[in-house]
């Protein structure tokens, strides 16, 4: 949008369209250049064991898809991540509620919540390994612990806001506690829970993968560990690309549309 403002207005519409094509062209060119450089480096700069060619990695990726491994292991990882999120909401909601309503509880939970959010992922991974071995509970708990702070803090922030005036209005109109909870509190909190989930999604996914790398018998992290144990750089790169694509896809096609729908009552603000 700012491009149009900075550019000239002559043949305005045509200019934006051609600009968009130009930009798309540049992005494609960027990827081509990147792949080209990669291939060059793989052939000439380092030995192909250290850096396999894009073609090798692509082959590996195709293998993973066709053998069904992609589907199987992503399913495991996704399932654990979702379970972890559910647990994070179950823990984070009441904590956030307490933090939002009471100053004392806010001070009480401030430290555990910030620490939990800042603990390096490796900590969760090794502790899960120690306590749970390679069982499912490890990654699930790790996701829960790292996402919980985001949810708790967001819920507390949500309760901080709109609340008072609407509560007072509800009291004046003699609404019961149940009605207030259903029509004021819950709708206030749900979008914030969602924001917490959205913020922490990528992070949770990463922690989940790390935990699986250390101790698991299935999942994306497990497959990455397998590749590492076999000294397969191509394998690691292949799973890495799938991993990243998945996060980006989730962002684009699940989280953003869901956010739009959840917040459709918001007045449209002019974007800067």
């Amino acid at each position: 949008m700012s491009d149009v403002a900075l550019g000239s207005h002559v043949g305005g519409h045509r200019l934006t369209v051609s600009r968009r094509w130009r930009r798309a062209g540049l992005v494609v060119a960027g990827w081509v250049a990147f792949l080209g450089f990669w291939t060059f480096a793989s052939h000439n700069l380092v030995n192909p064991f250290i850096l396999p060619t894009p073609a090798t990695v692509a082959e590996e990726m195709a293998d993973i898809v066709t053998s069904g491994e992609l589907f199987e292991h992503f399913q495991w990882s996704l399932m654990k991540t979702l379970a972890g999120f559910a647990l994070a909401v179950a823990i984070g909601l009441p904590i956030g509620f307490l933090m939002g309503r009471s100053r004392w509880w806010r001070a009480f939970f401030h430290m555990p919540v910030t620490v939990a959010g800042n603990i390096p992922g490796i900590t969760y991974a090794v502790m899960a390994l120690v306590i749970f071995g390679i069982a499912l509970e490890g990654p699930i708990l790790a996701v829960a612990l790292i996402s919980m702070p985001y949810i708790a803090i967001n819920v507390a922030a949500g309760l901080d806001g709109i609340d008072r005036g609407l509560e007072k209005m509800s009291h004046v109109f003699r609404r019961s506690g149940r009605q207030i909870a259903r029509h004021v509190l819950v709708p206030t909190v749900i979008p914030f829970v969602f924001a917490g989930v959205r913020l922490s999604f990528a992070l949770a996914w990463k922690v989940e993968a790390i935990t699986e790398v250390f101790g698991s018998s299935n999942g994306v992290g497990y497959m990455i560990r397998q590749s590492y144990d076999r000294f397969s750089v191509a394998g690691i790169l292949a799973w890495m690309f799938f991993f990243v694509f998945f996060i980006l896809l989730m962002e684009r096609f699940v989280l953003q549309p869901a956010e739009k729908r959840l917040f459709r009552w918001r007045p449209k603000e002019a974007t800067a």
Partner: protein
Amino acid sequence: MTTHVVAPRTWPLRFAASDAGAQTASVLVGLVLWQLLGMGVERIPVPSEVLSFFWEELTSGVLFAAFYNTLDGFTIGLAIALVVGIALGIAIGLSDLVRAFCNDIVLVGLAVPGVIWALLAILWYGFSWKAPVAAVALTATPFIAVNVAQGVKATSRDLIRMSRSFGVPMHKRIRHLVLPSVMDYVFAGFRFAVIMGWNAVLLAEWFGGRDGVGYQTRTFYDSNDFTGFVSWVVFFIVFIVLLDRLVLERVARRTFRWRAQPAEGGGH
């Protein structure tokens, strides 16, 4: 917001009801839970065991040596991340061409978990000192680049508008406007870079087996010495929490003070 509570008379009750009291209660509850967990689960040591282990490692000099080794690689990796990140960020922020080229790659870099960089770094550099450095650099650079790019983009938009309406010499504006605001974005990205980088260096040491905190942790785990293992985990958690609280939070607050100005669609 608060319910109307009558202030307690006696000072111990007043302390308990205050913020400081709540934080103390939090720490105490945490310690108690830890104690219970340690007594219940065999593999987990109780706080007192960890404390005495800490004293041992401290006095024998092992603690200091390990942290020194880790921080060595950590800071070098961070320095690389800063240099490359700032350069990349400025380039992306200033030039649409560079942005179109590099943006996706930087996003991919952001999304890749540190563990993958650590594993790749070890496969590439083996068990040398380069592996942890590479892991840190690869993990942290995208965070800095993205923040700097954002900063430069926002500032140059303001800059163009402002210099157009005032005709002020560009070099003055750069010194007083662009540079300070870019530094603020660098600080914001730096905080993430430190936390993610710390994670990466520990991972690289865990798998890469040279020396340092991650290596110590691994050694104790391998020999099934869980007191030692958990103690070292506690050490590095405490370290990063202290670092974050005492250093980075101050820095972040400085950044947020600037950000508190609502951005009304650009310059004002």
